[in-house]
Every structure is written in structure tokens, then in C-alpha cells.
């Protein structure tokens, strides 16, 4: 099954380009470290997923590039063509001249409706080229104007036009110390709108990746290109072909569907985080060896302690003991140390992955009580090594990791909105820039988002007695839940 990528705005296009680069260089690398047959079927699966063979020998990426100003798309197209290994379709881009001016409302209410037809035509064309459409992968930043505003609108349009397809939004969280002054407004507006039309939001934080570049990759003068390359590596480690538990005979044919099924059991909890180990500068790879138990141990502690990379993990954090009485330190006023998960997915790439013991991830104390640990944890594997790492493990998790950053963003946006200095002559900040109507819907939704994530803590607190099926049903009954395992459970 094929995935159509939609790259939105400067950030989306720059990252998208690095993603295709990473995938291509992985496929053409000689470090597969597996049998030729394995390598070939990996190659074929990857090709089908991301590229389209056309008359020209070079594979064409299944992507649509959208931006409101022409420079970035022009650069992206030419850099891809220069690589010689792949390129973008000649007609698969759309750009305008004036930009969105970092104005979410501009992207959503002006550019969106105005250019809806052209953009959706491009998407339709790409979708038709696929033998089987596996879903859409959109890449955008939350802070700007095009990626965020137009991105939210396009996601809505995708949902309307393809109601049964999977839509995964890759969202870039801006630097906390500010890239754009109105970034908090744009972020809150984007997240709340995306939540309604998207199936899952895969989040990468600029601050986190920056730290990885500085501390793990040892890059002295970190550029956006470096940041984007790390992000692309992490994305590649998730989306390159793997075998799932159900079918070990051929590479999974439905990556997005499998992802949603394992990680998004409830439509109210859609934010996914990604961790990948090991990460190190390329020239150190030759001198390093890895062991699966070591990697798994680090990955698990990164999950529990909400660490973003394999250095500086807090090993003191432990999961609460099952059935223990709830001490007051678990009240929501104290900073949460332990990161409760709803669902986790571990992806292993490299030799000897069959023998890996993942029991530590199945520990029920890691998870909320309303899901069976068997359903909450899944793994995907392949013996084929990824991108020169002899062994690598990725963790995609639906957990509380984003609680604090989200709280920060909502808090700052609210502060800016609610502070109205004295005289009547001054209008409050968003009114002369956004449409008021649009804004009033949003802080409520954003706060709701936050509260939903905190609800997992409360659900956790009910662990003393086994949660009856009726209770579970009540919690889920508010939203129609269209994933199979749950429907089966309800019927039982």
C-alpha cells in the first residue's frame, strides 16, 4: 500500500525532502546486513510505499508540495533532482507568491478555500497513481502561517474527500524560546483543528532534536538542515517496511492502518511521540557495537521517565506498583514524574531481533487500566538494518509525554490573549489579526485537550478495583470508535 505525503509550508517542504532522502539512501545503502532476498523484498516494499516508477528511470516521490511562496519549493525540487536517485513529480507542486505572513487565519480562511480545488486535484492525482492507497502523511509546523493554517484546512479537506483513509499529521513543535511571536496562537489553533479531522498527530519538538544534535551527534554549529536530517532519520525508522506480529511472511502492507490500530485505541488520545536509539555521528558508527538488551533497557527507561534521548535519563523514576494505595504525590498538582502510556509500539531493525525479550514493555504498571496490556503493546521487526545502524530500536508511544509542553503553549497563548492593557483605544491582540469567531472556539478546545491528557492520570487512580467492562464501555461510548479490536470487545 502506498502513502501519499503532503508537504506544507517551508518547514514541511524542507523536512519532506530530507525524509525522502533518508529513505532513498537507506534503500541504496549496502549496510542491509541481511540476505539478498530480504534486501530485495525490503527494497520493493519501500518503493511501492513511497515512490512511483515512471518512464524516467528515476523513481518519483509520491508527494504533493504546497507553499504560499515560491522560494522553498523551487529549492526543494532542484535539490531532489540533483541527487540523481529520486525526484519529485514535475507537476506535483503548488505555490503562490505572497506567503501567509505567519497568520493562521490567512492560511486557514483565506488561502485554504481559495486554493482548495487546485490542491485537492493534485492530491487526487497522486492518490490515483497508487494501486492501493494506504493513507496520507502530512508534514507541517505549528508555528508558521502556511503549514499551520493551510495545513489544518487541507487536513479537513482530506478528511472530507477521503472519509475512510488514514491521515497521519506530522507536526513540528517550535522552539520554546521563540521563533515567531504569535507561535502560541498558531499552535493552539492548529492543534485544536487538527484534532477534529486527523487520525493521529506525530509530534517532533525542535528543542529536543536540537539537543540530540548537540549532545549525541556532536554537531558544533547546528543548522536547520541538521535538525531536519535527524527528524528524517527518526521518521524513516518508523515508516520503512517491517513485519508485524500478525504476518511474518511478507512486509506489512498497511503501515498507517497498523499504526493507528495499535496506538490510537481511543479517538480522544491522538498525540504520538517518537524516540529512536541509538543516535550518534556517522563516523562513530564503525567503532560501536550494540546489544539488544541494552537498547531495550534504555528505551524503556526513556519511556517511563519521559526522557527524550539516551543521555541524561533519570533512572530513579519507577512505575507505581500495581494495586498499591494512591499516595498524595500522585495528585495532579505535583509535576508528573512517571509517564503513563496508553499504548506503545516498539520497532526493531537489525539482526537477531527474533530473540529480543520485550517483556519489560508488557508490564501492566506502565499502562492505563482500561486497556489490556496485550492490546496496549505491539512490536514490529525486520532483520534488515536501517541507515547504517547495525541495530536500532524505535518507540512510538501514545503517552503523557507532551503534557508539559502543551500546558506551556496553552498558558502562553492564554496570557497573550487575556492581557488587555487599559484604554479603550487598544484592541486586544488577536482581534485585528485573526477573526474573533475563530479564536473563541479555540482556547476551550485547547484546554480540553490538556484535560483529556490529564484524565489518564485520573483513570490510573481508579486502579484499585478491576475496571468492569461496563465502566470501560461508558468511557468509550461518547465517541464512535471505529477500530476493530474495540468493536469486537463490545460485542463480546
Amino acid at each position, binding site marked *: 500500500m502506498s502513502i501519499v505525503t503532503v508537504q506544507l509550508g517551508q518547514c514541511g517542504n524542507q523536512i519532506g525532502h530530507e525524509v525522502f532522502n533518508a529513505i532513498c539512501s537507506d534503500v541504496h545503502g549496502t549496510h542491509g546486513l541481511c540476505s539478498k532476498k530480504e534486501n530485495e523484498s525490503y527494497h520493493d516494499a519501500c518503493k511501492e510505499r513511497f515512490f512511483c516508477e515512471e518512464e524516467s528511470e528515476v523513481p518519483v516521490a509520491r508527494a504533493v508540495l504546497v507553499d504560499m511562496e515560491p522560494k522553498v519549493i523551487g529549492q526543494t525540487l532542484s535539490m531532489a533532482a540533483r541527487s540523481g536517485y529520486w525526484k519529485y513529480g514535475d507537476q506535483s507542486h503548488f505555490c503562490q507568491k505572497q506567503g501567509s505572513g505567519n497568520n493562521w487565519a490567512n492560511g486557514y480562511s483565506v488561502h485554504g478555500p481559495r486554493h482548495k480545488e487546485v490542491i485537492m486535484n493534485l492530491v487526487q492525482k497522486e492518490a490515483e497513481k497508487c494501486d492501493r492507497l494506504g493513507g496520507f502523511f502530512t508534514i507541517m509546523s505549528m508555528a508558521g502561517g502556511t503549514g499551520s493554517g493551510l495545513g489544518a484546512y487541507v487536513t479537513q479537506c482530506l478528511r472530507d474527500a477521503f472519509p475512510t483513509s488514514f491521515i497521519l499529521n506530522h507536526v513540528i513543535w517550535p522552539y520554546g*524560546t521563540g521563533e515567531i511571536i504569535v507561535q502560541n496562537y498558531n499552535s493552539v489553533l492548529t492543534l485544536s483543528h487538527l484534532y477534529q479531522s486527523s487520525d493521529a498527530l506525530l509530534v517532533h519538538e525542535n528543542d529536543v532534536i536540537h539537543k540530540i544534535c548537540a549532545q549525541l551527534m556532536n554537531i558544533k554549529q547546528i543548522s536547520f538542515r541538521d535538525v531536519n536530517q535527524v527528524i528524517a532519520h527518526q521518521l524513516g525508522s518508523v515508516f520503512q517496511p517491517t513485519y508485524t506480529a500478525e504476518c511474518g511472511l511478507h512486509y506489512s502492507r498497511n503501515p498507517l492502518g497498523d499504526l493507528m490500530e495499535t496506538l490510537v485505541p481511543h479517538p480522544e488520545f491522538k498525540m504520538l511521540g517518537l524516540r529512536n536509539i541509538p543516535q550518534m555521528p556517522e563516523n562513530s558508527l564503525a567503532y560501536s557495537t550494540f546489544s539488544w538488551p541494552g537498547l531495550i533497557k534504555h528505551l524503556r527507561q526513556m519511556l517511563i521517565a519521559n526522557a527524550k534521548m539516551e543521555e541524561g535519563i533519570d533512572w530513579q523514576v519507577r512505575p507505581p506498583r500495581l494495586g498499591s494505595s494512591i499516595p498524595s504525590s500522585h495528585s495532579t498538582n505535583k509535576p508528573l514524574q512517571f509517564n503513563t502510556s496508553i499504548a506503545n509500539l516498539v520497532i526493531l531493525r537489525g539482526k537477531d531481533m527474533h530473540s529480543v525479550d520485550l517483556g519489560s514493555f508488557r508490564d501492566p504498571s506502565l499502562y492505563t487500566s482500561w486497556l489490556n496490556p496485550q492490546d496496549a503493546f505491539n512490536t514490529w521487526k525486520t532483520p534488515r538494518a536501517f541507515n547504517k545502524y547495525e541495530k536500532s530500536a524505535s518507540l512510538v508511544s501514545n503517552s503523557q509525554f507532551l503534557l508539559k509542553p502543551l500546558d506551556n503553549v496553552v498558558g502562553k497563548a492564554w496570557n497573550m490573549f487575556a492581557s488587555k492593557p487599559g484604554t479603550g483605544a487598544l484592541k486586544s491582540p488577536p482581534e485585528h489579526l485573526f477573526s474573533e469567531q475563530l479564536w473563541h472556539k479555540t482556547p476551550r478546545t485547547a484546554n480540553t485537550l490538556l484535560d483529556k491528557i490529564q484524565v489518564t492520570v485520573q483513570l490510573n487512580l481508579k486502579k484499585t478495583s478491576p475496571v468492569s467492562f461496563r465502566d470501560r464501555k461508558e468511557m468509550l461510548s461518547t465517541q464512535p470508535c471505529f477500530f476493530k479490536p474495540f468493536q469486537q470487545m463490545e460485542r463480546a
Partner: protein
Amino acid sequence: MIIQIPSFPGAVHFPVEIIPTFNWRLETQFSYEESFQTLAQAVRSGGGPDIYKGKICSLKARALLIDMEEGVVNEILQGPLRDVFDSKQLITDVSGSGNNWAVGHKLYGYQYRENIVEKLRKAAEHCDCLQCFFIIHSMGGGTGSGLGTFVLNLLEDEFPEVYRCVTSVYPSGEDDVITSPYNTVLAMKELNEHADCVLPIENESLFDIVNKIHQMINSGKLGSTVKQNSLVTSSAGSAKTVQEKPFDAMNNIVANLLLNLTSSARFEGSLNMDLNEISMNLVPFPRLHYLVSSLTPLYTLADVNVPSRRLDQMFSDAFSREHQLIQADPKHSLYLACALLVRGNVQVSDLRRNIERLKPSLHFVSWNQEGWKTGLCSVPPVGHSHSLLSLANNTCVKPTFIELKDRFMKLYKKKAHLHHYLHIDGMEQSCFSEAISSLSDLIEEYNELDATKGGPRTDPSRLKIAV
């Protein structure tokens, strides 16, 4: 006075300078072909439907030059840039405005309205996509101030969706034009109401910067040979600097300011910053749109030595008093927002490091503690390896306005020189009182913001969801 009309795609590395009353001097530094088209329009030989064929035979600036006396404009047309300006895009008269805002605004405004609108429309039609108008003028005179603000009004009526960015040269205390306070305050009212953002410039600051550079060049210190074409006051590619008229150097600074401002729109970069983003991010409330600008570095030393300490020094300088283009000290006042546009080989880690380093010494308003807007453009200006333009929406403009108000009141109380204004049709005493009250309101708004500085930070309580 020039109205420039940048559009897309691309731009010309094209500093245009204006002097309030005297010389004009224009420099052109040609860069990439696509980058021309923002500020100028390529007139190609061969014409025809495919506009990319044919060599460029000339570039015409997307500009309208307006002056009510001919001397300055004539000099431009006879100077080295005569081919760049289209003679059809000129509006001149003979007698000038006599340093009288009313003459510029009411008399000539009325007289030339049709003419101006027509020429603007023509220029706008040549643009693929019109994004912004740059108005460059002085506040103290008659034409720049009066007719300039009239054109500002006009632009709002005719092109309401296009940004109006105004670069205004404010008169200094020792200005030789006696009625400059009147002219300035009357113009300020128009700027308050009709401009999207204003970049105030003061001749005193420009002069200080020029002096500083001269000292540096002439000091003869070891290792201080300066690269001539890297001076922020220089005009690379022009004739020798001997016997330059004094305003040329100062005007070059303003030209470089505008170049840097539009650089991200013209050249590629890893984090683009367009002109419309400037207003969006830096103007929290519609009337508080006065942005204090500073340019660093002022020169590059000839010995090639680029330790990152020099890069950090560039960031520190941008916030120092000596580098601001008005007489103001932003470090000790309250920041509402700040934008940093970096050009050259500077990466995001350098930017972040410096922001984190400088932030503790700056005061930001409580609802915008991390109020930074950043842009990275890969192409540095000629002669430099990197440069930084900082635009700050800061309450340090208040003293300038207070001083202006005082000078105005001194004259107004005695009703000195008022009759020259009231002679003109359409001009009444109420114009003056409205103008001064508009200025007073503006000062009051800045005062209120200043009052919150340093106080305890009380964040409003969060929205509660009724469950």
C-alpha cells in the same frame, strides 16, 4: 520622496537613498537574476510572450519619485542611475512646499491626486503580486511630510490590503527648519492612523554612526584596516569616497536597512521572513507600530578571522545604544516584541545561543516573555560574511515623542507661524488640536505599558471547562 513598490518574485540588491532636501545618491549592486524582480522590473529586449527570453537590457525600479521642486530629482536623472528610474514615474513641480505641511498635504495633494493614483496603478499592474509599499520621506519638511502622508492615505483607499511600511526621518533638536515640530506632529497623526508599521530614523544617530566609522578608519590601530566596501555607509561599486557629500554616508545606512529588511524576501534561507510577517509579529496593538531598528556590524575588518566571538559580538551590538537608528536605549525600556533577521553563514544554534545569552538583560512585557521573531537568510550583504538587522517594538521611542510634543507646544502656545498653515484651504485650527491629542494618546499608551514593567507578574487565570 520615493514610494517603492516591491513585489514578487525576487528582488534587486538595490539600495535607494533619500535625503530630506539635498542630494540623491543611488547605488546598485546587482545580484542574481530572479532576485531583481522584487524591487525592479526587467525590461527585456525582444519582448514577446515568453518573458524569460532575451537579455535584460535595463532594469526599471518599481518606484515613484515625488518632489515638489525639481532640483533633487533632476540630479538623479542625470546621475549614474538615470536608466533605472523611469521618467514616466516622476511627479514634480517647481516651487516646492515651503516647509509647510498644509501646502504639501492639502494643496498639492488635491492638485496631484489623479496623477498620483494613475501612476500608482500603472506600477502596480506591472507587479505579479503586490505585497507592500515602502514610503520613504522626512517628517520635518513640507513635501515629504505633507504630500507623503497624503499619499499614505491614498494608498489605504486605493490598495487597502497592501501593507504600508513607512521609513520616516525625524528632525533632530537642532533642525534648521523652524516649523518642523508642526510638520512632524501633523504627519504623526496620519502615521498613527494609516501606516502598518513605521521605522523612525534620526539624523543624529546616523551622524554618530558615520563618525564612529571614520574614527575606526582613521585611528590607525594595528589590525584595524577596514574593508572599504563592507562599510554600512558605503556604496560598493561607486566612485571614490573622497568628497562625498555628507548625507550620502548617512543615507547609505538607511539604504542598507531596507536591503536587509527585504533580503529574506529576495534570497533563500532556512527560515524565511517576509515583509507581511513583520507587521504580524511586531505590532501587538494597531497604533503601537513604531519599530526601532539597528544594523550590525558596521564594518568588517580586512584580516580574515572569524571566531564565533565576533558573531556573538554582532548580536550584543545590536542591542547597544550606539547602533540604534534613533536616539534611544532599548535595553533599559520595555520590549513588546523583537525581530532578528540574520544574513549569511549563521545557523539556528548560533541564533538560539545568543538569544538565551542576551535575554536576561532585556525586559519583555509580561504577556510576551519569549517574544522573538527570527529569520535566517543564507546570502550575506556585499562585503560581509554575516549581518544582523534588529527591529524592536520598544517603549524607548517614547522620549522621542515627548520631546517632539514639547517642541510643538512651545510654538503652538504662542501660535507662532500658524497663519502660514491656516491660509491654506481645508486647514483649520482643529487639525492641530487633533494632531497633538493623537500624539498625546500615543505617549499615554506607551506610559501605561511602561507602568507594567518590573511589576509582579500576574497571569490571568485559565479558562475553566464546565464539565
